[in-house]
């Protein structure tokens, strides 16, 4: 499957490089700290946060446990509302379906709303190979695309670029893609946003095909939901004549009413807002308003393999809010690129190795890209126990055992003893020789969570009993967090 960044070094190596890049670290530190402070405030406004979180968890779990039924319901409802449903088992199938649909319109360019699923399958590159140009329209995605770069954060993909770099990219590259940046562009954010507005507007106005993902698909009504801030989503969803939405099969919720949970928890967890500026909901096509043709491509691409794992399947509850990235001490220092996939941070560490398998060096090392501090679990609006899944995947890497790949049951061999140990040790040493990252990880030994008593079997034992493990302070994570606000006082 595609989606691995080609030539990507395994996590510890990539992280080491990133940690040495001081601009990157400065940008990341500023960004993640800003968001997480605001998020805590937005969440504190809701007295029933715990109940909303629990309801979200249960809705998603229930849907996943009966996913076949709900997918059939989605198909029926979308079709009844005038849409067409396609099924794609993997990235190649999805890309081929989309390319074919675009060709049938006779167009050779499309406008795109930021979507993790289309990034995961490498849709832009696949379209390019078919002679179709895909324009990213989210400001951050535009920065990434113009800078021939890779996204580094789910929500703020250009989080690793500061305003000066963005100005330079706009001034240098916009002309080659369409309307050039205005003369004398400065690095004021408002001016940069205005440059993007002008550059993209001409593309929106002439676009005949739009491509999107979706945050939610409601089974009972066939409604798709896209949550956004800038309005580029609305442009792509309403101005073109043809709309193609590529959506992972885990995005389904059973009922209209279920949205009342996620429309409260998602904006607060992700952008720390009571509500994001724009949310679009559409059901099939509407006469005289918006696209005349609507295609929904339901994407598997490793999701059913993930679903087959009774411990790991909870990762499919993820609503991609990115709260776990912003609290992760490892992410804050290593940055998104070190994770070698479109899904960075704690969620990436449990999702990528499940979607892609643990065959490659980067995927085998991802479950170790964590100090198991548990901050990700605390903030997750659907209560994914990321540390539990990490430990589970570590076991799988070192011990091997039954798993599902491409829909087939397989028995994984233990990663070659020494190789696994080396990967683990490298990751461990990387985290443990960084006081900041480590301090956040001390709860590893003091937590009473269920993964704690397990020691890693086989070569992993050497890791868990590592001589590199420093003494564990008694202070629990949360106290530490409040006292230092994420290690601000530590030396990095």
């Amino acid at each position, binding site marked *: 499957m595609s989606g691995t960044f080609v030539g990507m070094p395994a996590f510890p190596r990539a992280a080491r490089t990133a940690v040495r890049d001081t601009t990157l670290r400065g940008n990341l530190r500023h960004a993640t700290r800003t968001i997480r402070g605001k998020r805590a405030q937005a969440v504190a406004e809701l007295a029933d946060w715990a109940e909303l979180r629990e309801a979200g968890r249960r809705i998603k779990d229930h849907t996943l446990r009966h996913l076949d039924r709900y997918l059939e319901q989605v198909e029926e409802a979308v079709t009844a509302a005038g849409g067409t449903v396609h099924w794609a088992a993997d990235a190649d199938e999805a890309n081929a379906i989309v390319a074919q649909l675009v060709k049938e319109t006779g167009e050779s360019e499309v406008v795109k709303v930021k979507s993790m699923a289309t990034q995961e399958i490498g849709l832009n590159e696949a379209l390019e190979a078919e002679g179709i140009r895909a324009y990213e329209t989210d400001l951050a995605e535009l920065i990434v695309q113009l800078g021939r770069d890779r996204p580094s954060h789910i929500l703020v993909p250009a989080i690793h670029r*500061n305003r000066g770099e963005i100005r330079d990219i706009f001034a240098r590259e916009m002309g080659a893609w369409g309307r050039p940046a205005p003369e004398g562009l400065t690095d004021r954010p408002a001016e940069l946003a205005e440059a993007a507005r002008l550059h*993209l507007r001409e593309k929106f106005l002439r676009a005949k095909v739009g491509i999107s993902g979706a945050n939610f698909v409601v089974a009972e009504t066939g409604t798709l939901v896209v949550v956004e801030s800038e309005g580029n989503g609305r442009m792509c969803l309403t101005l073109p004549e043809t709309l193609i939405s590529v959506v992972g099969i885990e995005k389904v919720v059973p009922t209209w009413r279920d949205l009342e949970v996620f429309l409260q928890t998602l904006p607060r967890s992700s952008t720390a807002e009571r509500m994001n500026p724009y949310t679009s909901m559409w059901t099939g096509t509407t006469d005289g308003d918006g696209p005349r043709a609507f295609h929904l491509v*339901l994407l598997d691409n490793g999701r*059913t393999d993930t679903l087959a794992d009774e411990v790991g*399947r909870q990762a499919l509850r993820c609503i991609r809010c990115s709260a776990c990235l912003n609290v992760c001490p490892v992410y804050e220092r290593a940055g998104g690129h070190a994770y070698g996939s479109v899904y960075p941070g704690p969620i990436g560490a449990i999702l990528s190795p499940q979607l892609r398998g643990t065959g490659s060096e980067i995927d085998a090392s991802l479950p170790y890209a964590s100090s198991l501090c548990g901050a990700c679990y605390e903030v997750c609006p659907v209560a994914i126990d990321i540390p539990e899944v990490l430990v589970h995947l570590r076991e799988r890497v070192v011990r091997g055992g039954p798993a599902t790949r491409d829909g087939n049951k397989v028995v994984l061999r233990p990663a070659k003893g020494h190789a696994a140990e080396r990967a683990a040790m490298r990751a461990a040493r990387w985290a443990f020789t960084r006081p900041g990252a480590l301090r956040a990880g001390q709860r590893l030994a003091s937590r009473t969570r269920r993964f704690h008593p397990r020691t890693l079997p086989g070569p992993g034992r050497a890791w868990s009993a590592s001589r590199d493990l420093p003494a564990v302070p008694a202070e629990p994570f949360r106290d530490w967090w409040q006292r230092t606000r994420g290690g601000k006082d530590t030396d990095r």
Partner: protein
Amino acid sequence: MSGRERVLGRVRRALADVPREEVPYEQAVPRGYLREHGGRSVAETVELLAENLADYRALVHRCTDTGLPSLIAGLLRRHGSASVVVPPGLDPGWLAETEVTRVADTADGTPRALDGVDSVVTGCAVAVAETGTIVLDGSPDQGRRRITLVPDHHICVVRVPGQVVASVPQALGRLDPARPLTWISGPSATSDIELDRVEGVHGPRTLEVVLVTVR
């Protein structure tokens, strides 16, 4: 085998451990969360809506139905608008006191033509106090989705208290999923550049919400 059969087959095999007759949906999801946050009077709910709209940089105005035409005329004038898109079902009285050029919202209009229009005036389907959100559902007084997207200035009229609800759960209960819905909370914004919030990337850069008390 078709993609459909393959994907559904994989899903079913992946769920081999799940008993088919599990707890039904109705019992699987505890709804212990609140229907609204805090008990407010109707007037307080409207007040909260105004506060939260303003907090996300919408410009909030209040008037009675008799004062509405002159208020709208004044807003268009202050914005320097020469033209305004008018949804087919908009109360003609709302624009009675302005001279600006009316542009009809029609199926054969193009996005490019809309790009040349300065403002748009619409009603709304419902407004949510706790989040400072207005929701449009494409009814005749709101028009096609694109008319509130391409022009740079949107004036949205909310009838209070009738169209105001406290919370997101209450709003969803009032909306029809079969209609195309747009939830708007403040003008468009981005925080993509060093997390500095910048208003107005692609949608209307100015959002004015008029809370009109109907007598």
